[in-house]
């Protein structure tokens, strides 16, 4: 058994964040293991998105911090979080609307590519090769999320479900170790949700750890290895779905909300 102890990928240590009087996060500590699908649930306003924003460097926590892959994350440096291997999607989809689907994913390759201004101006062999590789990789990812036929459409003209997929493809383009999805199933119908579930499972199979915020309890309980529950910014419980589902405090949190 000890040979198989899953290693820690991300550790949140007493992360706190407040907005004026609102305590959005109260000393939240949790641990995400390599290779798992980790669910983060909680009623509206519980602080889930705020947790994401702190982790990805968009917000600076007022207390605590994160250790990712053994090394602390620098606060206030979103580009470094991406570089280190954390990619995310947004609750209210944030695509580059006037760029094509393909270009969106190509932008996602930014941290894994090098070409600078000089390369662009000279357009030398190395730059051209990298550009071709970026394009190819982006195309493959569109294929992976099954929207390759929309490659040349502007992102804003995609259907809602396709936009969600595109956002995932863009996130995957940075070759993340941890993929954070903020309510990816919001607004999807049953078929779309089932397809999404397949996609997420596939991504995990291909070796990426997943952190999933979701309101669809059925989806979370069916998909996640472990689940954490936030309520009023505080961690209520962190355990396997079967335990979380039966926990009295969780039931109260949802009923009380």
């Amino acid at each position, binding site marked *: 058994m000890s040979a198989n102890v899953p290693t820690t990928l991300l550790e949140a240590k007493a992360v706190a964040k407040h907005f004026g009087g609102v305590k959005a996060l109260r000393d939240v500590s949790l641990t995400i293991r390599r290779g798992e699908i980790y669910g983060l649930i909680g009623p509206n306003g519980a602080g889930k*998105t705020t947790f994401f924003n702190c982790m990805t460097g*968009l*917000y600076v926590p007022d207390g605590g911090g994160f250790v990712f892959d053994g090394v602390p994350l620098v606060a206030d440096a979103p580009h470094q979080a991406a570089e280190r291997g954390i990619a995310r999607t*947004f609750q209210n989809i944030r695509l580059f609307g006037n760029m094509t689907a393909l270009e969106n994913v190509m932008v996602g390759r930014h941290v894994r590519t090098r070409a600078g201004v000089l390369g662009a101006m000279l357009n030398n062999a190395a730059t051209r090769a990298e550009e071709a590789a970026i394009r190819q990789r982006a195309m493959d990812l569109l294929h992976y999320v099954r929207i390759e036929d929309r490659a040349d459409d502007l992102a804003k003209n995609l259907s809602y479900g396709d936009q969600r997929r595109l956002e995932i493809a863009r996130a995957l383009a940075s070759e993340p170790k941890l993929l954070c999805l903020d309510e990816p199933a919001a607004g999807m119908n049953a078929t779309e949700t089932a397809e999404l579930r397949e996609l997420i499972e596939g991504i995990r199979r291909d070796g990426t750890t997943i952190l999933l915020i979701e309101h669809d309890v059925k989806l979370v309980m069916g998909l996640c290895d472990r689940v954490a529950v936030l309520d009023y910014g505080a961690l209520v419980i962190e355990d396997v779905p079967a335990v979380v589902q039966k926990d009295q405090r969780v039931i109260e949190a949802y009923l009380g909300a």
Partner: protein
Amino acid sequence: MDIFLQQIVNGLVQGSIYALVALGYTMVYGIMGLINFAHGEVVMIGTLVTITVAGSLIKAGMPVALAALAGLSVSLLLCMALGWGLERIAYRPLRNAPRLTPLITAIGMSIVLQNLAMMIWGRNYLTFPALLPKVNFELAGAHFTFIQVVIVLLSGATMAGLLGLIYRTKLGMAMRATAQNPAVASLMGVNINRVIAAAFVIGSALGALAGVMVGTYYEIAHYQMGFMLGLKAFTAAVLGGIGNLAGAMLGGVLLGIIEALGAGYIGDLTGGFLGSHYQDIFAFIVLIVVLMFKPSGLFGEKTGDRA
């Protein structure tokens, strides 16, 4: 010490004028996110109209006080109409245009107004009629004139009135709501068009008043005067935190005082290396330094992007 106090007084006067003009910028910006470049020209037109009206009335034998009042009224009304017209004709059709489009329009209007003014009033400096008696006071070593006192008091009262309007009336509430979120405001039944028009009209009135003050104070006017004045006032608005009324007022006064002190002391500060002709750079240097440390201006709200 004398110089210090004197420069504070001078700065306060100039600053009150900046503040009045800055309010016009900040109201329009707060509500529709537009830098109304043509606002300085509205101030200029307010000044020149007063010269024509009050000047000719005085020449025609009207008592100075009455002529001053007439000049001010005509100038106020005309500028309000001008502000309203600018919004209606030039900016309103561009509400949904890309961000820089109305800015270029504003610049275009500014060029148009300036050259129109030049055609009407000519290239030369014009003498502003003496509308207020020239009386001097002395207090604690600082000299000041009746005109200076009037400028400071009148702008103070005007700004108090404006705050009352914005915070106590229905129109003011509508304006604040629109500044917060135009979409929601219009859902709540606020007539956005009316609110924007009101911002332009009120801002222009304040500008006209400031123009008359500038004219009375410096006794001189010119078709290009609106440019630098507008620039400084806009700087003041940003300094205070654009979109914020109290910020514009304080920013204006602060800018006036900093400039006056800077001009008075720059020679001493730099060991005679830089002279008072560097006065105009203070505004900008202060602005850059302040924004480096307070990116939303001195009194602006922190606009934390909600991710």
